[in-house]
Each structure stands twice: as C-alpha cells, then as structure tokens.
C-alpha cells in the first residue's frame, strides 16, 4: 500500500495543503494519506511525500493543477516536474542537525504509537529511573539556556523551583510566540505535540510540580487543537495523570488560550493572564520560581527549552553540551522569515553565521533585490545591515554586534524598506501593546512615535534625534520589562545604521 504524507501544518494549509490532501485521497482511494507536520521547507509547501524503500521522496510545491499527474507518479515515486528527490538527501535538510525538530514532519502528530515508534518517551523513562534530583542536575549540567529570548540558564530555574518547599508548584510553558518572524513553537506544537508533553512531564516530576499549564496564543488555533488532542491521548495511555508510566507519580497539564495580547509573552504578564486577569507585568523580585502562578513556586520555560529536555535526559547532558559554541550550548532552531526566497526552519548547533542562514539557506530575498536589513529577535530586536551578516548566531556574538538573538527569528528586508518607518512602527507597536503599568513604556512609546514623525517631517531633526536617543535611554533603563526596555533596540539600530532613511524627502507624510 502506498503511504503518502501531506502536512497539516498551518503554514502548509495556508497555501492549500488541505485541498491537495482531499484531491489525492479522491484520486488514490487505496493509498494511506498521513497528515504530518511540516519538514520545515516552507517555500516548498504543500510538500507531498511518498514512502519508498530508499526513504521518503518529496514533490513540491504541489498545486491543484498538478494533482492528477502527481497521483499517477506517486505510487511508484516516478519522475514528475515537481519531484525533488529523497527528502532526507535534499541539501537544505541534510546539512541540519535536528534534535528538537527530529520528529516534526516525520511522525503523525495525532498518533501516540508513532511517537513511541520514533523514540518518544525515552527521556521520560530515563528521568523516572534516575529520579528528580539527578534529572535537575542533568538539565543544569547540559548548559541548556532559555529559548524564549533572554537565554537564562534553565538549570538554575529548575534548581530554584526544586528547592522550594511548597504543597503546590506549577510548570508553565510559554507558548505565546508573539514575535514576528518566529514560528518554531507553533510548528513543534502542531507537528510533535507529544514531545512538549514529555518535556513538561519530566519538568513536573523533577521540580515537584503536579500541575502544568501551556499558555498558547489564540492566533494558533491548529496548535491548540493538536495539543488538546495529544493531552487526551497521553492521559488515556497513562503518560499523564495520577500514575505516570507506573511510577506512582502524578502530573497533569492544561492548555490555556491567550486573547491577543503581545505583552502576555512576558512571563509575569503571562502569569496574570493565566490567573484570569489583565496581562499586567509584575515587578521582580519575587521571581516566579519562588512566587509565581497563584503565588506558588513556578517553573516557566519556553516551548523550545522544554522540548530540548527529553533529548538531554535520554542521551545525557554531555551529548547536548558537546554542541554549540562558547556559552551558547546545544542546537538553535532558526526561523527564516520575511523577504526570503526559501523560508522555514533551520535547526543547527549555535555558531552558524547569519550570512550562511540568509544567503545560504534562505537563498537571499524572494523579491530578488539585495538584502538591506535583517531584524533578529522579533519586534524588540535590532536591525542589522547586510554588511554585519558575518556575525556568529549565538547569544554572546549577536549581543556584541548590538543585537539580540531572541527566539531565533530572522526577518529579512530588501532595499525597498524604509527604515525610518520601521523605527516608527517599533514605537507604535509598543504603544499598542504596552500593558500600561510603567510610565517609560506607556508614555515613552507614544512620545517616540511623535518624535520620529518630527524627524521624518524635518522639524528640527537634529534636536529631535537627540531627544529620541534620550527617550530611548529612559525607556531602556526605566521600564519594568522587556517590552519598553527593548523597544529602543530596533529604533536606535535603525537610527544608527540607516540614518539616511530619516532624511529622505519621499516619505509618505500621512
């Protein structure tokens, strides 16, 4: 029997994967069609694969017009204008080293048996065998750092929560992936939800938390559906519940859905939102590890941080620690986005250069025009120039270059971009999304838009540039969280590196 894979990833669906799957099912009623996650080569979606003795063979991007001829080719993996070859041998994939994304696009995300058949649960079994204290130390020794953006050592958080004595502790996964240019959390939740469940369960057993929450943004309906189905399946199999894998230990988890607020990706605002309130940032200390959700010790990690844990427990901290460069340990899931020819997921050890990602993997711009600016780390990240692309993509090197690695999102702009407008947008976005708790962020962002407008209009531009720099200093030093504290990053990097755009006479003066 022919087995055909058509992704159910929402990016693939946005370019017609559902229609292709339906049409193939009608044309090949004998075939088994599996809706997998995406292999991460998003420019080739919908990417259809067929099982062969040599491995899966890929065809893409498949259009409705091509279905009839494709249906003839698929059963024998025959030649076709869209045939790309054996998927695993495609250079784009073959050069990557996928740990976190090892199963995404391979397994059926709805099928727990498929998860186990592809090595799932080995990390959880190892954690149960070595016990909670050794599991926490394994995470500490691995050198794993938080993938949400700040890069804080995960082991320190785990130790802190584990050491707290409390009747109730929590594990919260931050899946409020609001940064433009990032979609790795979404693809993981849609393509391999059991990995996140396994990682959270290890975290819960290790730090002594019996309840977990996944806070998913409402813009990710497919991820929410996928996670909820996986949690139900995991409960049925005893992977969650009162007696996890017969260990006698309890852990259960719940999905909570956001409501369209960017600042709820900040960990303390997320806690407020999980408690059902306005997503207002809390001052720190106390840190959530000591006083978090409902006032209890709470481990908060990003999706990708937690998803790295099963590998660490299964293969040992040394295996993970051997990857990467300097203090940036392990692999990073880079996301190529914006004006790129070949957008998608590149998982590789830290240390690859930005140039290799943007010009190598992504193949430059989709428009065919020269790359002018690259924004790293979402709306709060710096804009780098095309000349700065030799930077090594690890936490320290990017910071030294005046940027922020953040969640690994890379947004490419061609030479038609107006960087004064991008700087203005950064302030406008902050004004829109500020929780309003602290003045530098709430008021500063509004003033920032006004000052940038004056510079653009040519109203005392020199004096207003100084004012903008001063305002940015106040926001950086005086804001309660990264929202106001980092908004100056894109603004000042644009002003510094693309100064000429603030003097253009062709601005749209609306």
């Amino acid at each position, binding site marked *: 029997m022919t087995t055909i894979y058509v992704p159910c990833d929402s990016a693939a*669906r946005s370019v017609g994967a559902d229609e292709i799957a339906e049409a193939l099912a009608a044309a090949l009623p004998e075939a088994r069609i599996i809706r997998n996650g995406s292999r991460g080569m998003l420019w080739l979606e919908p990417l259809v694969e067929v099982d062969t003795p040599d491995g899966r063979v890929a065809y893409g991007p498949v259009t409705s017009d091509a279905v009839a001829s494709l249906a003839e080719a698929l059963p024998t993996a025959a030649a076709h204008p869209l045939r790309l070859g054996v998927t695993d041998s495609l250079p784009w994939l073959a050069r990557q080293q996928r740990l976190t994304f090892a199963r995404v696009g391979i397994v059926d995300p709805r099928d727990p048996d498929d998860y186990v058949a592809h090595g799932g649960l080995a990390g959880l079994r190892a954690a149960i065998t070595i016990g909670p204290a050794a599991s926490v130390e394994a995470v500490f020794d691995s050198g794993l750092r938080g993938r949400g953006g700040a890069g804080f050592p995960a082991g320190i958080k785990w130790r802190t929560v584990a050491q707290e004595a409390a009747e109730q502790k929590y594990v919260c996964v931050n899946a409020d992936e609001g940064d*433009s240019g990032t*979609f790795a959390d979404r693809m993981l939740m849609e393509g391999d939800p059991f990995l996140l469940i396994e990682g959270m369960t290890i975290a819960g057993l290790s730090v002594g938390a019996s309840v977990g929450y996944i806070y998913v943004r409402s813009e990710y309906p497919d991820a929410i559906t996928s996670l909820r189905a996986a949690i139900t399946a995991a409960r049925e199999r005893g992977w969650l519940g009162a007696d996890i894998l017969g260990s006698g230990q309890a852990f259960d988890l719940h999905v909570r859905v956001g*409501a369209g607020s960017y600042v709820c990706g900040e960990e303390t605002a997320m806690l407020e939102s999980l*408690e059902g*309130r306005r997503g207002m940032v809390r001052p720190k200390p106390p840190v959530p590890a000591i006083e978090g959700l409902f006032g209890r010790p709470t481990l908060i990690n990003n999706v990708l941080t937690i998803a790295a844990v099963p590998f660490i427990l299964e293969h040992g901290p040394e295996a993970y620690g051997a990857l990467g460069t300097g203090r940036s340990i392990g692999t990073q899931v880079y996301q190529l986005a914006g004006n790129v020819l070949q957008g998608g997921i590149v998982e590789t050890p830290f240390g690859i250069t930005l140039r290799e990602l943007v010009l190598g993997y992504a193949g430059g711009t989709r428009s065919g025009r020269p790359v002018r600016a690259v924004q790293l780390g979402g709306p709060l990240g710096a804009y780098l120039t095309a000349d700065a692309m030799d930077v090594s993509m690890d936490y320290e090197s990017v910071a030294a270059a005046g940027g922020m690695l953040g969640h690994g999102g890379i*947004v490419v702009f061609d030479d038609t971009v107006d960087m004064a407008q991008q700087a203005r947008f950064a302030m406008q976005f902050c004004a*829109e*999304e500020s929780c309003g708790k602290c003045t530098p962020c709430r008021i500063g962002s509004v003033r920032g838009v006004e000052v940038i407008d004056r510079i653009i209009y040519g109203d005392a531009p020199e004096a207003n540039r100084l004012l903008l720099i001063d305002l940015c200093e106040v926001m950086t030093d005086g804001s309660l969280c990264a929202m106001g504290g980092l908004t100056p990053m894109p603004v000042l990097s644009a002003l510094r590196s693309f100064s000429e755009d603030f003097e253009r006479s062709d601005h749209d003066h609306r």
Partner: protein
Amino acid sequence: MTTSHTPWSPESARALLVEIDEPGPVLVALQTLQAAFGYVHSDSIPIVADVFNVSRAEVYGVLTFYSDLRTTPPLDVEVRICMGEACQAVGARSLRADADALIGPSCDVQNVFCLGNCALGPAAVVNDRMIGRADASTLRDAVMATGAGA
C-alpha cells in the same frame, strides 16, 4: 460566522458560566461567552462578577484589556491582516491599505500582529481560514468563498 452563534440571553450566559470550574476563571469565562455568542454582551459583566465573586470593575478591566474580546456582534466576514515585520517585508502595508476598498462593508478588517506564517507572508485570516502569500485577489477570493459576498 454569526450563524454558528447562539443568541445572547442572561440565562444562557449564566448557564455556561456556572459550568466553568477552573482557577482564575474570569478570562476563560469571557472567552467562553464570546465563543458561544460571538461577542461579550455588556450585560454579561455583572453576571460574570456574580458567578465568580469578583468585582464588576475587574471583569470590565479584563474585557477591555484583550484585543480578542469584543463587545459588539461580529460581522459576517472577519478579515485579519498580519502587520508583523515579516509580513511588512513582503508588502503587508500596501495589502492593508488596499483591503478596505477591496472587501466591502459586510467585512470587518482588522490588523493582527503575527499569525506565525512568517515565511509565507503576507498572511491573512478570513474567518477561520489562513491565507499565505496573500494578495488582493486571493484575499477577495477567500472573502467570496465565505458566501457573504464582497
């Protein structure tokens, strides 16, 4: 979109709310009401406050904080256009500028910040359907496909 919603009434709102058994329930309660009725009727505020023993001010505060929550019935077609940087890099600003004229009065056009489809932008959502590499014509087709007319 509106057809799938039940008409609002205080009794049916209360019946839904008393079923909610979660810690920190106010946001979940408002999301539940919106999912059922398409919006959160302002008369729900005292009911939520009563059921969960919180102040009306707190309920109002939550209701007005989150951009997903709405207090008026939705139009037949809801178009959300991603204005994240990755989509701006491939023309989201001009798509947004064209959208109002393109789509017509039965549609509610809104900005959204990131739909997680950043490699295949510009991204847009028409009711529940996401469109990648959106342009004026695919957007109009998607609106027509809802059956609501443009």
